[in-house]
């Protein structure tokens, strides 16, 4: 096999003299709060509308206005949607970061800058070509003085890029239409600026030979663009969530806000009134408490938060675990520990989630990896919560939750809600006839899952007393150690039962191949990309996409079937590996961790590099990885 280079992407790119078709990686550097968001969105949507497979990554600051922000758009004929660390074009519209930005472009790349004022010497570098567009001057001519003017400036680079790479103005118009449909004035002024950028390039006769974007007929046909949080919100609504309590925190707020947006539009009103309650709680402890109270009283209840909120919810989660109350927690992970990097992505709350709360606790975690699994798992999370009468986590990360992904349309599996072992007054009447006694915490079926009634059930047998303290099978207060141990053992058994219910991993095995790769969540796309590159480089791999905890037998089989298994996760301490090693230590010894935890969406290049290092026998080691100085976006 060819010797690994530090960056396998290189040969696909450098020193080419014919432009690539629909293969382009643009990075737009601006200031946040400067209006670039909508300009970037228009550009991305336009490329999408051309039918070209594309993705966007927004690397924004934890601040509202004035700090650096980067937006990366990748067009990929082969349909790879992961963030890419080799940048073809840099839109250098932020003076504060320009000095660094110019070195983020690959050799042979292109820098688009605002030449309203001449380019200072220190921003010149070798090996890349510069194209200037007088964005400031143009908007000053075109847009009447107003706060809006500054924002319009960003439309200029949209037009310039459109010309350079061949995006048809008609398509841009239709995107503007979709976006500002009801505001013709806005469409007009945006269009003027975009066109100005377009025409300027044209008059100058500027060209480039990096890439051309060409319409792919019916490409992206039927595809939607959305983020994981929105998909989860819709999933929760379709899953029957009726009590939603949350406390704002990035990156989970947009999930709750998407529910606030869609719920009134989708959920049937009942004679004019709301069939749901959405409460912005005073803090995460209250949010969790409300969800537990609502779950206890029989509603499908959920909250959503990220690391700091999860830490605060620990005690309440333990109550729900021990008192066996259904409730759902959406955890959108960000860079920790503590406040960390609130607007960057990571998968570093896995241990805290799986073992949440003091005492012996283990929880069910659903792990979507794309838009449709977000929708599907969010919907089904309420079934799992009620079936197992326990807190269920839906684990996302900021990359999956907040970045835009193109996807097949959301698909609703038409299946009945699973309310689990919920007994109505009628059921109890039946039991009574059969001379059966309702015992809240008794393991009738030997699967560790007891039967449950909810307040409002007025059958004489129905009521019981719920508590987080020791209790016997009849929900009576008890400090007897036999009762106590029985409860603990049954809860463990319930967890074992869950193994047979949670979503199984998606496994891909090739005969004769003994190298495996495991990933989960937003690492899926870069890993897919990476595995293709490794194959091209002569290294075939088997694959397992982990979709839930507790671990299922398929994971064990996969570990047994492979000699070495690379586990890709976005944290420093190999947290998922730790959970696997806890279950199967001898097999866990086969794991080589691929760890990406700098807060940026994972790139295929990084995964490839770490795997090749690992393959080269070296233990994947932080400092080693740093040594390999690769080009990467400093978002």
């Amino acid at each position: 096999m060819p010797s690994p280079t530090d960056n396998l992407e290189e040969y696909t790119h450098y020193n080419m003299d014919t432009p690539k078709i629909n293969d382009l990686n643009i990075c737009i550097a601006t200031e946040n709060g400067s209006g670039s968001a909508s300009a970037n969105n228009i550009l991305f949507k336009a490329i999408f509308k051309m039918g070209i497979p594309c993705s966007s990554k927004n690397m924004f600051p934890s601040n509202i206005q004035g700090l650096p922000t980067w937006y990366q758009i990748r067009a990929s004929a082969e349909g790879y949607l992961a963030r890419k660390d080799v940048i073809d074009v840099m839109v250098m519209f932020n003076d504060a970061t320009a000095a660094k930005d110019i070195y983020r472009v690959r050799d042979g790349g292109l820098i688009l800058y605002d030449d309203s004022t001449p380019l200072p010497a220190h921003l010149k570098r070798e090996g890349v070509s510069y194209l200037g567009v007088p964005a400031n001057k143009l908007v000053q001519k075109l847009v009447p003085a107003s706060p809006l003017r500054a924002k319009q400036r960003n439309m200029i680079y949209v037009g310039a890029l459109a010309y350079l790479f061949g995006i048809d103005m008609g398509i841009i118009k239709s995107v503007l239409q979709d976006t500002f449909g009801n505001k013709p004035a806005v469409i007009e002024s945006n269009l003027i600026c975009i066109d100005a950028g377009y025409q300027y390039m044209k008059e100058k006769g500027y060209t480039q030979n990096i890439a051309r974007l060409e319409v792919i007929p019916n490409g992206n046909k039927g595809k939607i663009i959305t983020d994981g949080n929105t998909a989860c919100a819709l999933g929760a609504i379709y899953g029957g969530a009726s009590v939603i309590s949350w406390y704002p925190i990035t990156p989970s707020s947009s999930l709750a806000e998407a529910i606030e947006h869609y719920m009134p539009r989708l959920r049937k009103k009942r004679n004019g009134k709301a069939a749901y309650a959405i409460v912005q709680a005073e803090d995460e402890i209250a949010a969790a408490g409300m969800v537990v109270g609502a779950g206890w009283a029989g509603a499908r209840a959920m909250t959503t938060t990220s690391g700091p909120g999860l830490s605060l919810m620990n005690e309440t989660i333990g109550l729900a675990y021990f008192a066996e109350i259904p409730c759902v927690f959406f955890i959108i992970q960000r860079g920790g520990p503590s406040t960390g990097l609130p607007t960057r992505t990571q998968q570093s709350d896995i241990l805290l989630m799986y073992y949440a709360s003091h005492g012996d606790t283990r929880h069910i975690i659903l792990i979507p990896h794309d838009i449709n699994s977000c929708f599907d798992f969010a919907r089904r999370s309420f079934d799992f919560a009620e079936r197992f009468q326990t807190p269920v986590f839906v684990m996302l990360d900021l990359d999956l939750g907040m970045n835009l992904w193109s996807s097949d349309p959301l698909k609703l599996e038409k299946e009945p809600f699973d309310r689990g072992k919920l007994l109505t007054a009628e059921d109890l009447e039946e039991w009574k006839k059969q001379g059966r006694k309702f015992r809240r915490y008794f393991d009738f079926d030997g699967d560790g899952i007891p039967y449950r009634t909810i307040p409002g059930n007025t059958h004489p047998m129905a009521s019981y007393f719920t508590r987080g303290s020791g209790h016997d099978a009849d929900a009576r207060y008890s400090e007897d150690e036999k009762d106590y141990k029985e409860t603990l053992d049954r809860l463990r058994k319930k967890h074992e039962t869950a193994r047979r219910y949670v979503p199984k991993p998606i496994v891909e095995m090739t005969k004769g191949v003994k190298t495996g790769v495991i990933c989960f969540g937003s690492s899926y796309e870069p890993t897919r990309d990476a595995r293709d590159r490794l194959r091209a480089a002569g290294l075939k791999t088997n694959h397992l996409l982990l979709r839930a905890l507790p671990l299922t037998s398929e994971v064990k089989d996969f570990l047994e079937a492979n000699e070495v298994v690379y586990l890709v996760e976005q944290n420093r301490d190999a947290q998922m590996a730790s959970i696997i090693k806890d279950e199967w230590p001898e097999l866990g010894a086969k794991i080589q961790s691929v760890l990406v935890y700098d807060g940026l969406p994972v790139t295929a290049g990084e995964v490839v590099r770490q795997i090749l290092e690992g393959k080269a026998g070296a233990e994947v080691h932080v400092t080693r990885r740093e040594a390999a100085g690769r080009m990467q976006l400093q978002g």
Partner: protein
Amino acid sequence: MAEAKVNRINLTEKDYEGAPSTMCRGCGHDAISASIMRAFYSSSIDPRKVIKLSGIGCSSKTPAYFMSQSFGFNAVHGRMSAVATGANLANRNLIPIGVSGDGDTGAIGLGNFCHMMRRNVNITYIIENNGVYGLTKGQFSATADKGTVMKGGKVNDIPPIDLAELAIILGATYVARSFSGDRKQLAPLIQGAVAHKGSAVLDVLSPCVTFNNHEGSTKSLKYIKEHLDPVHDIDFIPPFENIEVDYEEGTDQEVELHDGSRIILHKLGRNYDPTSKMGALQAIHAAVAEGKFLTGLIYYDPSRPEFAEEMDLCDTPLAELGQEDLQPSVEDLDRVNGQLMK
């Protein structure tokens, strides 16, 4: 053997009892439980429509000791307010009674308590106030008066939080103070609280006979009895008893509650109007200045809608809605997909 006395829904007092109490003999909390049973019995409320909630503490254990036919939830320390809010949203038709302690509400639970009051969530919220942490063996709580002495002799050097005053300021719509030993006052106050739709807070002085009943304590049985300052005598008249009470002009005041029941306040000396917020605050401060415990219905605001109303919640309990009510159609989803294609 004589027929047991029954109330309007044919239940005996026994039907309102709970498991045997595990409080210390003479604990004020048991007396409060008795008043609770009396109140629900007298108002002929079906215990199976009631939910009992609490936090952690001796006081919070008591819901197990009354109305065992009701569902109960002994949650975690200081979080009863949040749990009760969730339960109320899930099923607004149930009658929630919350029992907490001065530690549970005044210390760890204070923030959540304040916000529950602010939302005016429908609940009868009883604070069994003994000025100490009973279950952890007698440390000072946030309602311990400045200068009061701990069993060991330690003196409290920070001022107390008056939870009734706080409730009034934060938006509670029915606020009372009473004493565990005064069932004549406490039972009707509880009946009124249950009839009221919104946050009804009862700050009930309830001596801890084991850790806070000694000389030097301002929450001892003796001290409390000597410093009670009732603003009025009180009677409760349930809606089904539409009898004509002939009360004396000027000295009696009638308060009509949401469900049509009435509270009659028999003035005692002073002219006290529970519907004036400022008046209530003044009265509390005046009493505190004299080292007195102001008791009775201190504040009442019939105008403010309960949280579920503010939320425009449907009448059917959310917990009773099925898939057909909750799950939008495939067509709706296709429409959303359509929007997401743009």
